[in-house]
């Protein structure tokens, strides 16, 4: 679906390339996460993939063709939901979707159906200027899906959503994946990526530092630690940290079990976010633009 080979991109007027030697492939039906802090280059990568930036070097093939030589029909086949949901504010949600829908020549879904996907059917005739940020984000997603694109680019799709609606959007994305759509998810929300992505790429300073499945990354990143809390006879409380695979052979743990009062046992798995910090030396929320 997407093949990127030795991609470099330099913004006009800049001496240093923002994207440097990027290589990755995204298969059909995959949810692929581009993860990284703001300013890392993930949005620029997305802009190259959707044909907004064509003055790159290297090769970027999307839907079988080099993106630099694509024409307008390319946009019949991709759906893009930008991070900031921009609409005609004085028009209603229904009018906005009708307008965008009229710009496609491929079959599109009825506006009511699209609004139903994102639970906005009851607010169809309300002007977008009266929508909350979360409602606009959902409308943004509906707009990107109306023409049944096989390839979707979603930039921070759950940003500004309450937990209920965020869960609803996640379910919708899983459903889209089950239908065979390919989704490129750009986010700095590691929890979202961990839950949805088949594979993730860590983007830092315009380079991809690592690509793998979230599960394998976490497995390879280190062992799960077990925290054992216990109380001494004099009442002092202490905690012991043991790698999970050493638990059965750990003498101190057995001693605690036999002679101390055991208070709690918790396992601590490394999150994708902690792994990101370990691999890149950067926090995800730093360098906000």
């Amino acid at each position, binding site marked *: 679906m997407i093949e990127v080979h030795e991609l470099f*991109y330099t*913004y*006009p007027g800049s001496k240093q390339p923002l994207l440097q030697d990027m290589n990755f492939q995204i298969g059909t039906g995959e949810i692929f996460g581009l993860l990284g802090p703001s300013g890392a280059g993930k949005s620029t990568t997305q*802009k190259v993939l*959707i*044909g*907004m*930036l*064509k*003055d*790159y070097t290297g090769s970027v093939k999307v839907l079988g063709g080099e993106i*630099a030589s*694509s*024409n*307008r*029909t390319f*946009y*019949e086949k*991709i759906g*893009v939901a*930008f991070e*900031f949901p*921009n*609409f*005609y*504010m*004085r*028009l209603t949600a229904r*009018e906005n979707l009708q*307008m*965008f829908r*009229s*710009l*496609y*020549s491929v079959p599109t879904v009825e506006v009511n159906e699209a609004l139903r996907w994102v639970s906005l059917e009851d607010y169809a005739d309300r002007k977008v200027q009266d929508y909350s940020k979360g409602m606009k984000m959902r409308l943004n997603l509906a*707009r990107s899906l109306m023409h049944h694109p096989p390839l979707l680019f979603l930039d921070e799709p759950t940003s500004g959503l309450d937990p209920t609606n965020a869960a609803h959007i996640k379910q919708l994305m899983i459903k889209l994946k089950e239908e065979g759509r390919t989704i490129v998810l750009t986010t700095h929300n590691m929890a979202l990526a961990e839950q949805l992505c088949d594979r993730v790429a860590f983007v830092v300073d315009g380079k991809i530092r690592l690509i793998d499945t979230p599960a394998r990354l976490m497995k390879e990143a280190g062992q799960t630690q077990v925290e054992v809390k216990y109380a001494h006879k004099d009442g002092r409380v202490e905690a012991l940290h043991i790698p999970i695979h050493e638990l059965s052979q750990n003498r101190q743990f057995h001693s605690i079990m036999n002679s101390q009062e055991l208070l709690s046992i918790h396992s601590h798995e490394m999150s994708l976010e902690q792994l990101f910090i370990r691999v890149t030396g950067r926090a995800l929320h730093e360098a906000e633009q």
Partner: protein
Amino acid sequence: MKQNNRWIDMGLLSRFASIGACQWSLLRNGIWNEIRIQFRHGFYYAYALVSALYLIILQLVPIEYRESANVFITFTDPSVLGFFFIGGLIMIEKGQHLLDPLFMTPYSPEYYIWSKVLSLSVLSVLSSSIIHLFTFGFTAHFITFLCGVWLTSIMFTLLGVGVAAKCTTVNEFFSVSSLYGAISMVPLLGWLNLWESPIYLLWPTQASLLIIQSVFEPLHIMEGAYAFLYLTVASILLFGWARHRFYRYMISIQGGGKRL
């Protein structure tokens, strides 16, 4: 992959010509969408009021000056309304970052420009028609008059697109556009008999004045050929210029400046 900044080339001409040949539905939908937006922004209400006001003014003008007043009003207001409205529309859409999602559809900047230009020409033609028909009725050269209004409106709105593309605020647009507007109105000096000169023939707006005035003073065939041809050529050239500025100052801000 260098950016191609030539604004008049064979590719441009073929694109210009191909607008008439392919994807009419996209252009038609684009125009309809624009009319809906303009309606929502109150342009149609505003021009209903303006047209009514001009009707009253024309009734108050002595009958011997009424024809000249109609030409003057039509040329200086309904024909050029797109020049000013396009600035507001583009500034709003620029400010709301609407171009990003718009151009993530098959809708190209060329369709965007033509949809705006042609939709605003509808308002020009409607307003001019109302003012003329309610004052003079359906006259012999009314259709020629409307063609003049239509071509003038297209030309001025394209000029407005080119000016607005580089501006960042509505105030900036109005200050820059007033200069362009003043230059384009120079042939009025001759029309008002303030300063006679054949040099006005170089202005496309002289052609506009000739065609609009032809509703009362029919044109000689050579004059008509000059006027229609000049307005058409001026519109083609202005489209090339507006398109070039649009890609350079608006698309390059979003993307890297490469034409899609």
